[in-house]
């Protein structure tokens, strides 16, 4: 049985929509937050709130890959192995992590003595960050331009309980906290992280500096954004993005000036 608070929140989600059933996807996210996975009790609760049968709810829950019928780790690591990321290093990263954690796809690495948190691993498909390949998602936050050893360090920091910041986002919260946000409950972290990473600003930087030969008449209002400082090309030494393997403080130190200008 789900607790009363969760039940009330499930009703609240359903009430956001002109037709209650539209709330089912965020409701299942909330179930995962409360229960740690899509449990039979969670399915029953959604069915009860929406006037559906448990089979109807299960049919939906089993269609979408973000819904898990088994527990995942506190930090769920998704390595993009779609073509572009795979080619750029995603396959090597996945293999390295699999060996390091001694787990297969969708498995949770055993909690060792001294570990504060657990970590699980899966392949993910293209996550719309190809200009930052190879990309890894941890609890659906971006870790851009990853390397095998860098990600191993990140994973070890997560297991040890050190804060790790997303390259374009806040300190990464636990999977259950993330699932609560995906159910539509704000956590107040929207002001963390930069507006955009360096690759997102690549074209803007050029036209702001006039390097493309264009006159400075960018539309609208002739006010181009400030040229970003960073122009890190893949393959260049400074692009070796070990920063996400560092703790949050170290990360602030390492890339603070570069990536967090907008965050002042």
């Amino acid at each position, binding site marked *: 049985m789900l607790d009363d608070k969760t039940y009330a929140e499930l009703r609240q989600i359903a009430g*956001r*929509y002109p*037709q209650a*059933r*539209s709330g089912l996807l*965020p409701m299942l996210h909330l179930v995962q937050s409360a229960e740690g996975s899509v449990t039979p009790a969670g399915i029953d609760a959604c069915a009860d709130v929406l006037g559906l049968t448990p089979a109807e709810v299960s*049919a939906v829950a089993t*269609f*979408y*890959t973000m*819904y898990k019928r088994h527990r995942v780790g506190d930090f769920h690591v998704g390595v993009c192995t779609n073509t*572009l990321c795979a*080619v*750029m*290093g995603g396959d*090597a990263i996945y293999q390295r992590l699999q060996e390091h954690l001694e787990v297969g796809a969708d498995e949770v690495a055993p909690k060792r003595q001294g570990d504060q948190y657990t970590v699980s691993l899966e392949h*993910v*498909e*293209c996550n*719309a*960050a*190809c*200009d930052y*390949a*190879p990309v890894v*998602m941890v609890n*659906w936050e*971006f870790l851009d331009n990853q*390397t*095998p050893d860098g990600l191993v360090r990140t994973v070890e920091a997560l297991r040890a309980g050190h804060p790790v910041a*997303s390259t*374009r*986002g806040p300190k990464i919260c636990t999977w259950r906290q993330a699932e609560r*946000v*995906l*159910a*539509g409950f*704000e956590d107040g972290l*929207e*002001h963390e992280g930069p507006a*955009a990473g360096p*690759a*997102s*600003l*690549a*074209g*803007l930087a050029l*036209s*702001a500096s006039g390097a*493309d*030969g264009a006159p400075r008449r960018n539309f*609208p*209002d002739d*006010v181009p*954004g*400030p040229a970003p400082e960073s122009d890190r090309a893949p*393959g260049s030494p400074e692009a*070796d993005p070990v920063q996400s393997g560092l703790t949050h403080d170290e990360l602030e130190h390492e890339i603070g000036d570069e990536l967090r200008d*907008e965050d*002042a």
Partner: protein
Amino acid sequence: MTTELLPVLTANWGDERAWTLDAYRAHGGYEALEKARGMEPEDVVEAVKASGLRVRGGAGFPTGMKWGFLPPMDDGPAAGKPRYLVVNADESEPGTCKDIPLMMASPHTLIEGVAISAHAIRAEHAFIYLRGEVLHVYRRLLAAAREAREAGLLGDLQVIVHAGAGAYICGEETALLDSLEGRRGQPRLRPPFPAVEGLYASPTVINNAESIATVPAIIKNGSEWFAGLGTEKSNGVGIFSLSGHVTRPGQYEAPLGITLRELLDLAGGVRAGHELKFWTPGGSSTPLFTAEHLDVPLDFESVAAAGSMLGTRALQIFDDTVCVVRAVLRWTEFYKHESCGKCTPCREGTYWLAQVLARLEKGQGSEEDLDLLLDQCDNILGRSFCALGDGATSPITSSIKYFRQEYVDHLTHGGCPFDPAASTLFEGVRA
């Protein structure tokens, strides 16, 4: 004549705290909404029609015309039914990475576009369907919708920001509608089209996030301005996303009709010491191009005439270290995984395509397997329920067309002749 970059949607991404209402307003944000509110809804629709904005989600259909298909509100079968605006922000096509940075950096651009578009089509409910796997983007969108509401910018409009749960197929507009109704995301038979019977069987406009986010700039600067950019039939600017083996990957906003050669010049060229081998003009579902297509203007007509599709302007660049068979097999496994299972050609077809390709990639099978693959593609293309099946055939047929010998080389070599380590970002760098 060279085409220059022209930041419009991307112009404020470098601004301090660009995602906040204050920063967006400091940039002139919500002025277009004020202007639109002073216009009759029909005139807003006309302005979007006159701008020539073609939908930015891949299909290239004229946006204003899509809006014009809504049936009358006061007469006929749709009389008395509410109208809905749905934004497709389920960006999942491999290679496509423009909407996510847009919504992360400047969510208010989309919210303003939603408010103007809802006014134009007389909708009182608008939904932004965001893929679920981008937590921070969801935070920013939720906050932006709340800020706009609290500032009184939305009037009576209800904007609901909805997170999906991991299914590429939900980028297909009718599958998205089913998903938004709390069902499995499977495409619907058309007709009826969403304009007539969309969300909750009511008249619905569904557009890609970039399309809707472009509307404020059109209203603010005028249809003529937008129509005067780009090419004759492909008007305006669009975000071109360069990824892969390019010196400075990223987002480059430019008038439609720019070429990959021009974009690569801006982006510092292909990775140092390597040559361009193949690329996608608009995501993995658009047939591959090679170096011979560097000067194809990236507009809807020119790319189609050269045998591919402009799609989402997702330019994935692969250099000479990349095995095309490996690349195509991986995309095929993606389509197999993402096939929703509703129709047989796609469900079974993508399964068998992956089987045959995997065999070839290992250097097993025979040259006849290439003909088998083409035959399988022939039985999927145009015979599937939606465009997912069609898209699954694009990398296969185009790669066999341009790189047949490389498939054969796998057979003679007894496996893949390429070193995958040579393609990685950290090649030559101690990771």
